[in-house]
């Protein structure tokens, strides 16, 4: 089973675990299994339209799935999946 690392603020939705191991052939499978098993987590990762929220990036090991095969990116039991936010900003704009 692949390991999904859970960011601290989201652990409250996965029984306070810091990682979850799930079976799936692709990243899409894993995320579906994760949010099916822990339904309260879903709204924190996906919009009402079912798309990953704009600030959510998914990495398989050290690779951003946007530069692989997105949801269809294959995963194996030895892979680690990270949920990583996009963060930027700046002093302009009141």
């Amino acid at each position, binding site marked *: 089973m692949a390991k999904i*690392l859970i960011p601290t603020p989201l652990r409250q939705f996965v029984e306070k675990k810091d990682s979850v191991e799930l079976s799936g052939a692709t990243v899409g499978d894993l995320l579906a299994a994760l949010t099916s098993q822990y339904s309260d987590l879903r709204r924190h990762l996906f919009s009402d339209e079912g798309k990953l929220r704009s*600030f959510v990036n998914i990495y398989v090991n*050290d690779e951003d799935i946007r530069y692989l095969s997105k949801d269809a990116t294959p995963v194996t039991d030895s892979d680690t999946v990270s949920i990583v936010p*996009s*963060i930027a900003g*700046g002093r302009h704009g009141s």
Partner: protein
Amino acid sequence: MIKIEQAAWDVMVSHARTTYPNECCGAMLGSVDGDQKAVQVAVALENAFAGAQGAFYQLRPEDLIKADAEARRQGMDLVGIFHSHPDCDAYFSKTDLENSCPWYSFVVLSIQKGEFHHANSFLPDPDQTVAVQEELQHPR
């Protein structure tokens, strides 16, 4: 409430002063107990924005993954992000809000003429439309 311990605070202020007049950024590691957060370690990260960094910062997700791994290694949590506003107040700008995420505390340090002036902490909402200020305690 977020409380920053001396060692972490020293790293944050030093990073903000060293990178002045550009914006700096970094990660805050510590512990969370409900709404109470304690920051024991600050990790200075590189501003990855490719353009002028005097008014913009960008974190590399890869750096955030490393910071999270370091937190896990030390038995801590990644609890927040910090960045600086050179010659500007420590408010949460529209740019900050539109590029934030609701999972972490965002501490903003105002650096005036190269020296620390004041700081505030903010909690953005999931829709990136509003950020609530949270109580911040830091050493003098």
